[in-house]
């Protein structure tokens, strides 16, 4: 083979290689989203919020053409570490982004460490724990939500009375912020006295106990956590005080909504789990594409009362289409 022949062959094979390479590259980029996996790790306690998060995440997964693994953390033998175990399973299945509403800071820390080892990213929903290794947090502005609740309470009491604050025993920074917000808003009204220091967790008994304690002399109760709202409302019903004690709370669980419709709960500050799931998925997709995820994404909150809860738009927020 002489030189020109060799040169010709060289050029043509280069051309071919280039063509093949571009073809392959095209194919690879096309199939990438289907291969990469995003796992949504359920909280151990399921509820309306968790359901809407899932719906939102699934909607986004469909829109972005991503694959969504739903990891159930509510497995009988998993104990306190349900989410961690679910996260480990997800990583083993090849998930490269973990989406979760963390049950506790400790679990999130362990999960973030685990994910870091496997090269996976973590996106948290509904809370902003100060944990290293979380790529993005989707959350409402809890301070602002607290202020909204405080203002609503002040309005209900016409700026005068005693308000008890039923806090949370969880160390999650979100609840602290809410509390600060509530106190801040109520503090603007000179004739309103705020009693803080009560708190309860997610157990109905504990919350009922706390509700009984703070019920004594309060004109209004602001409860920061779903169970607290429910227990307070039930306590007022039990005591026949429901017309006198105003209740402002957070959450959009079905029992809360029923109590809201019946006027026992006066105001609920609601966040959209669907949007949290959707935006979390959006950030996860961004991470998968190699882009830069926003460190924090802030969600809007809405204030609903018994009158406005069945407004068409609020219906859509409060009652997701559960399949």
């Amino acid at each position: 083979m002489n030189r020109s022949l060799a040169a010709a062959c060289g050029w043509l094979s280069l051309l071919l290689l280039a063509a093949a390479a571009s073809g392959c590259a095209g194919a690879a980029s096309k199939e990438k989203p289907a291969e990469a996996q995003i796992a949504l790790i359920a909280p151990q306690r399921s509820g309306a919020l968790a359901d809407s998060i899932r719906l939102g995440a699934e909607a986004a997964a469909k829109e972005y053409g991503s694959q969504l693994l739903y990891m159930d953390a509510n497995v009988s033998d998993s104990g306190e570490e349900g989410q961690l175990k679910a996260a480990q399973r997800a990583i083993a299945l090849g998930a490269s982004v973990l989406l979760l509403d963390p049950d506790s800071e400790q679990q999130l820390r362990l999960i973030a460490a685990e994910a870091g080892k496997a090269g996976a990213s973590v996106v948290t929903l509904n809370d902003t724990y100060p944990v290293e290794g979380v790529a993005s947090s989707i959350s409402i502005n809890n301070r602002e939500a607290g202020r909204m609740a405080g203002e609503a309470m002040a309005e209900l009491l016409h700026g005068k009375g005693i308000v008890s604050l039923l806090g949370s025993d969880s160390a999650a920074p979100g609840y602290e912020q809410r509390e600060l917000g509530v106190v801040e808003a109520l503090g603007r009204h000179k004739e309103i006295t705020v009693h803080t220091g009560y708190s309860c967790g997610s157990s109905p008994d504990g919350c009922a106990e706390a509700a009984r304690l703070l019920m004594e002399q309060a004109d209004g109760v602001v409860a920061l956590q779903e169970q607290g709202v429910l227990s307070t409302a039930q306590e007022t019903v039990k005591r026949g005080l429901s017309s006198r004690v105003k209740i402002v709370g957070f959450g959009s669980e079905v029992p809360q909504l029923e109590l809201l419709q019946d006027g026992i709960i006066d105001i609920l500050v609601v966040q959209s789990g669907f949007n949290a799931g959707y935006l979390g998925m959006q950030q996860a997709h961004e991470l998968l594409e190699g882009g830069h995820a926003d460190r924090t994404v802030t969600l809007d909150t809405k204030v609903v009362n018994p009158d406005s809860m069945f407004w068409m738009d609020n219906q859509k927020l409060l009652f997701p289409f559960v399949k």
Partner: protein
Amino acid sequence: MFRLEMPGWIKQKLRKSRVSSIQSIVIWSFSIMIVVAITTVAVLLHEKFSASTERSAFLAARQTVDQVSYNLEDYISGMAGFYRAIEVNMLKNGEWDGQQVDKQLDTLMGSRDDIVSITLFDSGGKLLKNRPAAALRPSANATGQGWFQAAVRVPDHLSFSLPHIQNLYKGSYQWVVSMSKRITVVRDGQPQEVILLVDMNFKQIDELCSRISLGHRGYAYIIDEGAGNIVYHPQQQLIYMGLKSENVEQALVASSDYVEDMNGNKRLITVKSVANIGWKIIGVSYMDDILTSREEVNRYLVRVVAGVLVLVVLVSMLLAMSIVRPIKRMERTMRAVERGNFDVELPVEGPLEVERLSRRFNLMIHKIRQLMKQIVQEQESKRKHELEALQAQINPHFLYNTLNSVVRMAAMSRGEEVVTMITSLSKLFRISLSKGQNVISARDELEHAHHYLVIQQMRFGRKFRFSITATEEAEACMTPKIVLQPLIENAIEHGLEYSVEEGTIDISADVVDGMLVFRIEDNGAGMDSVKAALLLHGASVPDAGREPSATGKGSGVAVRNIHDRIRLYYGAPYGLEFKSELEEGTVVWVRMPAIKEVDDHE
């Protein structure tokens, strides 16, 4: 200016890189031609293909949306029928109490799982009857609800509400579409206005819409044709929160498909009205999603083009080689000719043109060979003639000396000797002439030598003796004439002339191994081996012309001429051989092929 220089520069570069060779011209032009052809075909095919995939994608989207719309329409009209059945069963006689009616209603409800509740109100919103029987929530404000107001507004018209949350009863909140109608019944003889509400689960409609398949990411949503409200959207929370928006206005007025650009995403919007409920289904398909087949076609075409390219390159290489190979062979052969090898021949094969060219080349080489042979022959014969002409020259010196000797002898009245000498001289000349023949018999040649020796013997006063012996066979052989005489002259002049003692010259002729061999031996002064070697490899013909033999110094040239002459006649293996030693003498062998004397010799 630069532009003007470009072509020359390119040309030079091209020449340098041998792009102008036939092989590369064939490969490049063939490859480029095929690639251009394939690419053109591929592009045309691709256009055609993608246009048709686009069409079919549009059609598929339209069909899907149409299908959903028909399903929805069917579903709604089925529901309306169901509503009528309830109406008939419940309100036939204005009698809705009693187990009979309950049973009928339960049967009806049991036939469908998408009916949430059947409720009958009076015009003041008071509950008259419901199925399944359950207490109304105290907070349920029936008269304030949309479906109630719609029923009150238009009597005897079945109105469908937008999907909403049913909040009349305790228990789970469900998304329902309410069918309501104000009906006047006669109960206990009195006309009474009642409002019949049938709530159907929205799940069914939701499923109809969410099952829709418009590519991977596509979806459908429903708007209310009256006000343009979004009735249903798979992501309605996002829309409510302002995280997503739909171009409802355009969809509302559109009557056919259109493509919109939403945040850089091209989307195909397919609209279809659902007549009986006043809704409009809007199908949203992402163009890059439904047209994935276009990319598949692209990839396929790229692969095909690449494959064909490889094939084309291989074929064109083979083609080019088959054209170029005979040309290269020709070039190699020509180079051989250039180096002086004329004994080459090109095989006459390959394409017609090459075959012709090879044949012409062979003819040319053949002609060159012939011409060369002719030239060699001409040169040889020219030289032969030259040598012969030289040889034939009678040395005037010799004649003059001989005649002088004869005169001297005659003066001394040595008549006998004069006779002998003149006779020998005359015979010498006769043989020298030989009727113009160049080749004579060895016998004659030996006789010629004999006469020459006799003359010289007499001239030199019998200073030497000589003997001539020859076999019969040798005598019968042919030899170029006057081969021996210069050698003898040499022997006498260099070997014997200055010798003190009596010299001898012995000449013999014999046939050895098919060769005629003359041997001339003298016992003269002899010479050293350098001089002997110089005799054969020294000066050439032109010098011979200047230096006649028998003058002493130049006699080497004559010897050389004999050698050359024999070799010209008979070839390289023949000629002279010297063996000489100083003060001992010299032996000369003259060899040539033994060729028998022909009969017509006379």
